[in-house]
């Protein structure tokens, strides 16, 4: 018999933390949510993630109670895990129902590759396109377009990246579905044209209307305000 306690330390707008929330909800794992202000980090967060000092952090505590008449053996493991994709894999391996990663090693490697590659390339290019203007923005949009073309090839003919059900890659790339439209508005630009990218556009609709996903998004007006502020700060920092 076990008593599990799962806590997620996160910042409301973080797309990285959102991945972890989705993984937990898809597997129907009960957890406590602890909001962290990333501009004023708590001592607890710094203790839980001393290397990167970032959210999200998942803390899993498991108290194993002995069966009746057995020798008492209480094991309490207080386990912090950082880095969103690593947390998602841990969740997938610990709670085995509703598997997120494919079973076959090659398909697993494929999903992991796309999760990190898209994050590196589109995450960076998208941020620059959202927060900068002029030539810098144009260059970022071109880089974003290159990777978005590859994502379009990946999703072609599929409802989700995971096939019929949401899988690891949907969870890893889900930020695109709700955050890119916000970034497009803040940066007055377009990254995902529906006519040019019909596959991704369909996937975005499918993903956001999934019963587990649809009520998890941060309020749009709050996100717009937050990213407008981030864009203004970025522009001010770069003024000569």
């Amino acid at each position, binding site marked *: 018999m076990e008593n599990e306690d799962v806590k997620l330390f996160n910042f409301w707008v973080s797309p990285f933390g959102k991945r972890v929330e989705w993984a937990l909800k898809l597997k129907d794992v009960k957890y406590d949510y602890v909001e962290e202000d990333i501009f004023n980090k708590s001592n607890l967060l710094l203790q839980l993630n001393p290397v990167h000092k970032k959210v999200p952090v998942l803390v899993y505590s498991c108290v194993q109670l002995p069966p009746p008449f057995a020798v008492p053996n209480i094991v309490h493991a207080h386990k912090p*895990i950082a880095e969103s994709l690593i947390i998602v894999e*841990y969740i997938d391996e610990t709670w085995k129902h509703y598997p997120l990663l494919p079973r076959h090693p*090659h398909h697993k*490697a494929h999903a*992991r590759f796309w999760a990190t590659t898209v994050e590196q390339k589109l995450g960076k290019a998208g941020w620059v396109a959202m927060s900068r203007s002029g030539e810098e923005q144009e260059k970022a949009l071109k880089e974003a377009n290159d990777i978005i073309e590859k994502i379009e090839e990946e999703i072609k003919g599929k409802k989700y990246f995971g096939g019929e059900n949401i899988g690891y890659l949907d969870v890893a790339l889900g930020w695109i579905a709700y955050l890119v439209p916000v970034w497009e508005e803040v940066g007055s630009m377009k990254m995902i044209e529906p006519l040019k990218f019909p596959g991704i556009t369909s996937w975005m609709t499918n993903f956001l209307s999934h019963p587990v996903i649809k009520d998890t998004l941060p309020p749009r007006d709050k996100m717009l305000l937050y990213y407008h502020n981030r864009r203004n700060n970025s522009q001010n920092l770069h003024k000569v």
Partner: protein
Amino acid sequence: MAEANVVLLDFWPSSYGMRVKIALAEKGITYECKQEDFQAKSSLLLETNPVHKMIPVLIHNGKPICESLNIVQYIDEAWNHKPSLLPSDLYKRSQARFWGDYIDKNVYNSVKRVWTGKGKEQEEHNKQFIECLKTLEDELANKPYFGGEDFGYVDVALVPFTSWFYTVETFGKLSIEEECPKLVAWAKRCMQKDSVATSLPHPHKIYAFALQYKQRHGLE
């Protein structure tokens, strides 16, 4: 175990390529190794890694896998006989992945900045490099390997960079052994394993490569 259809696209000084060689050697997998020339990338490389166009690429039964730690995990899963590279305990496995990711984000860049750096920035680059190693040394603590008693994933992720230590020390004018004695002892321990000794080039060969690179790019 002889494998007819395992090909590795590599570039011999690459620490990332060395990781894959170590993992294949740990599992006793035979493979064909093809050296790539960065001035003239092969059509096979461009076909199998169109996104990054970088080595290493492992091609198993005609299917490519890219990104070195992704490949190492694939090797551990596709050939799941012992030795296992990732721990069976799920929490320890998450920690192994965490440190692999830390090494990916920090070590290559800090190593490169030291051996290509010069002038006023050299001191700062040296400082960041040593800080990075000390973080890893703290994680190693008094264990023989990062995973504990057995050589594993994090050791595979980090040990290739030790073939660059002589280069870093020579160009950076620093002593890694003085700053991080436990890490250097760990490196020597790893080099006693065949899989590591046969996968890492001699440090002097790496130094000669680095010297040529600096001359070619006007970085002296």
